[in-house]
């Protein structure tokens, strides 16, 4: 038995940056998380940008002396 992969609506790079920010605030829906993951997996510029945001967030947590929000 095979299952069809659920369709994941495409999002743009600009929308991806919005979702990265919402994800940082734990303000993101499961479907948006899937869209974000799917887009980043297939978009080199967004992979780079996503890694840069990750560096930024780690540095912020260190600078502000707190666990990730």
């Amino acid at each position: 038995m095979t299952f069809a992969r659920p369709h994941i609506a495409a999002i743009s790079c600009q929308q991806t940056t919005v979702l990265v920010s919402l994800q940082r605030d734990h303000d993101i829906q499961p479907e948006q998380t899937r869209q974000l993951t799917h887009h980043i997996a297939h978009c080199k510029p967004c992979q780079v940008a996503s890694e840069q945001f990750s560096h930024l967030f780690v540095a912020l947590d260190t600078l502000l002396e707190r666990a990730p929000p």
Partner: protein
Amino acid sequence: VSSNYTQSSLGELRQGLEREFKLHRPFLLLLAQRQLREPRDAEDAVQDTLLAAWQTIEAFDSRSTLRTWLVGILRFKLIDTLRSSYRHHARMECVMDELQQQDFSSLFDEHEQWLATSTPWTSPQTALESKQLLATLEACLTRLPEQTGRVFLMREYLGFKATEIASLIHLEDGHVRVLLLRARMSLRLCLGIQLTGVQA
């Protein structure tokens, strides 16, 4: 920036406190000034923090650094102050004028795709590089527009949720999320320029 002391060296710690306080005071003041409109209130919050630290130094947990402890004390003082003062002083002017200031659409094409792939950053390899990265980030934070910086630190430093921030400063939830996004985009750009020498 950090200092490690043990409980057993309390006398030694007290001797070094004044010097340590001077070292950490500028960053504490930056955090306070971003939240409290009146410079004197920010000065008072920092002074109260240092006084509380001085008076309760015995409670200092040697597993953390003095800087971590001070930043934590200030965090609670600011949260208390904000929760009481914002209820009485609605700041309607807050951030509304900034919504049009920074537009990152120039980074994207008509299909909302990145115009260019930015240069990847490398992780700091040494303690010195880590320290330099944090110093750069601190400098970038100071360059955020005042109101954006305030909202951003309410989220990232004080830990308010976006909806709480919106409620406290009488904004729409969406406006707060836009400001948080813009702050993060600005910091990423600022760090990118500093780390790679090119606009990210």
